[in-house]
């Protein structure tokens, strides 16, 4: 599997291969099933969860509405505390800024804190092109990197791998691994720890993302489980933090809400083991140079969409992935983006546009079962956005002279349903052809491959009513 998402096929095609991958199916069933149960337990412990969730949504909405103001406030606070703020319109600009910043230090290696924003902009590849090696230090992210694979989950990028596979990856790609490495979880973690410890001690530059940026003080916040992030954030001389512009919260009081929502939703913990916060630079303590790169990369476009903008509330907890029945069968790769699952299905087409076959197919990669909306800690109505994106796609095609087959079928259905006489006629025609319908393949190919096709009733309900009850209302 290559490290890039370019030229990905539409979701149904990628999904076909994924559902046939038996090991992937069993890994995902186990992993998502476990985390789903644990999340439900820790969320049920709080009797004010509904209020917290509403508060989380309201704070994010407020911040997004006044984003211009809060971004400036953040920049001023960071600058006042001794940091430097850079603005990046898109991925290319962000990568250029970061590459230049690393070059200025003269270093050719950086350590990285697990970060979705840097994945989104493809930073590692951009740095590699400039001769700079970026080492992932999150355990699961490291596994993916060593395997030259792509992440398949927001929180657990190697969720598609089991321990035996991870041992093989380590043996193959980790230079300093013991020859007799077992697939015991402790042994694997120990091997990774020794490998990473050498990187931490040598690194002079670190790159991080952030979970939150507090506008009032210019403070950046990372929540993590392993402590590897803390190493990156404190030991190097230079810290470059990449921040999607939707990561802002106005105040520390607002942050409190999210520090309750995020751990319970993502790792099913009451509190995550490590919460790091940093504000500018402090002589003799921690990195002496702090660069903050604020990245738009399509976000202001999303903000302009009245329905779609709620996707920007996302705090990347991955609860929606873990409950999604489609994700559970397919895994993350078929979504063709660092954002898989339900949130990916609404975020990727909005950030990248729907010109490509993959992006255009994502709004349909859902049964609209609603499980994602129910667990989302910031109440993003994902089914609502999916349907909205479908409607936008349909409306964009209306300008074409020749209708698509689907549009023709939908128009025909709407005409048939336009009145009881038309519907009755269609029902009688279907009843006459009912034996044929059972054998129909096209246009029901996708259905009939594995499922029997129901036959229309010989007499519709309305015909039965008229025959047995005479006149209707």
């Amino acid at each position, binding site marked *: 599997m290559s490290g890039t998402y370019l030229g990905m096929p539409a979701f149904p095609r990628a999904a076909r291969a994924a559902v046939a991958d038996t090991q992937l199916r069993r890994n995902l069933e186990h992993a998502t099933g476990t985390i789903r149960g644990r999340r439900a337990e820790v969320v049920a412990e709080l009797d004010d969860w509904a209020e917290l969730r509403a508060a989380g949504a309201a704070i994010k909405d407020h911040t997004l509405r006044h984003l211009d103001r809060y971004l400036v406030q953040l920049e001023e606070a960071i600058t006042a505390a001794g940091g430097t703020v850079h603005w990046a319109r898109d991925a290319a600009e962000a990568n250029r800024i970061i590459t230049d910043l690393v070059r200025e230090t003269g270093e050719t290696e950086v350590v990285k804190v697990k970060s979705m924003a840097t994945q989104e902009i493809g930073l590692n590849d951009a740095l590699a092109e400039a001769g700079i090696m970026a080492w992932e230090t999150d355990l699961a992210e490291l596994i993916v990197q060593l395997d030259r694979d792509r992440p398949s989950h927001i929180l657990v990028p190697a969720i598609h791998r089991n321990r035996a596979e991870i041992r093989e990856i380590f043996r193959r790609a980790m230079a300093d691994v013991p020859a007799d490495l077992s697939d015991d979880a402790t042994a694997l973690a120990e091997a990774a720890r020794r490998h990473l410890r050498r990187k931490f001690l040598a690194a002079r530059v670190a790159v991080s993302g952030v979970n939150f940026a507090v506008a009032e003080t210019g403070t950046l916040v990372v929540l993590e489980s392993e402590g590897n992030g803390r190493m990156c954030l404190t030991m190097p001389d230079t810290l470059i933090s990449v921040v999607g512009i939707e990561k802002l919260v106005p105040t520390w009081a607002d942050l409190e809400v999210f520090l309750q929502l995020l751990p319970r939703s993502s790792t099913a913990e009451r509190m995550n083991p490590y919460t790091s916060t940093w504000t500018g630079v402090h002589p003799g303590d921690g990195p002496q140079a702090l660069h903050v790169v604020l990245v738009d990369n399509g976000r202001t476009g999303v903000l302009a969409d009245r329905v779609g903008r709620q996707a920007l509330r996302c705090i990347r907890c991955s609860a929606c992935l873990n409950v999604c029945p489609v994700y559970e069968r397919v895994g993350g790769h078929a979504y063709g983006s660092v954002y898989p699952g339900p949130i990916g299905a609404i975020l990727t087409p909005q950030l990248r546009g729907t010109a490509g076959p993959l992006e255009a197919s994502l709004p*349909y990669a859902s049964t609209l079962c609603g499980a994602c909306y129910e667990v989302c800690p910031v109440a993003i109505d994902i089914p609502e956005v999916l349907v909205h994106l479908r*409607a936008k796609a349909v409306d964009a095609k209306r300008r074409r002279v020749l209708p698509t087959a689907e549009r023709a079928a939908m128009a025909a259905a709407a005409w048939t349903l336009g009145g009881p006489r038309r519907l009755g006629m269609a029902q009688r025609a279907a009843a006459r052809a009912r034996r044929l319908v059972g054998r129909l393949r096209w246009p029901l190919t996708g259905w009939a491959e594995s499922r029997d096709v129901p036959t229309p009733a010989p007499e519709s309900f309305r015909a039965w009513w008229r025959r047995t009850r005479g006149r*209707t209302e």
Partner: protein
Amino acid sequence: MRIGLFITCFNDTLFPRTGKAVTALLERLGHTVVFPAEQTCCGQMHLNTGYQREAIPLVRRFARAFADLDAIVTPSASCAGTVRDHHARVAESAGDDRLATEVADIAPRVYELTEFLVDVLGVTDVGAAFPHRVTYHPTCHSLRALRLGDRPLRLLREVRGIELVDLPHADECCGFGGTFAMKNPDVSVAMGTDKLRHVLSTRAEVLCAADNSCLMHLGGLLSRLRAGTRVMHLAEILAAEEKAMSPARPHHRAPGARRTEHV
């Protein structure tokens, strides 16, 4: 109380016996049911697939057909959900204030069958008899859009002779999802297969639900597998009586099998 039956276009055409069951059931409970002939469809398929504009006349027609009824009862959780949760938005997007008022007026009077029985009529024992081993699948719209909760189970528990067994992992989607079943057939079938694994583990003879659409998907898989378990809308179980206890025929005709009547 004037009770109008909203049959839904899908049941009207493919599963009329569900409509007959609802009618028989409500009449057995002493009510008169009317069938407004002007009704066709709530627009769910169009709305969920992104054809909002095509849905506008359907919403208009729905509002007109059911305007003067006290209660509108439907054997479909997903269509009830469409009317209650989406018609208002359609009216708004059409910029039609009168329609918006009509829709807001009608929505609270639309009930899925088990809601109507339990909440409005206040019954759980509807006098049914169905001596079979049955499991109930709460469809996503039953569960998350309408929040039917245990209403269907309370009704089923009172059915004489029934052997009701819990469905493991009941709250997981079956994989139907309307056009999803056609646009993403592989994932749809994978989800359906996992659902069936749980259904078959109950060793139930009958799988029931409040939506024939999901049952059509699961029933289509079951009959293809010759699994020996059939699907039935729960209205048909609630309508079943002591005297008419011959097993109902399967929804689906196996290819190559002799013709089976649908009524």
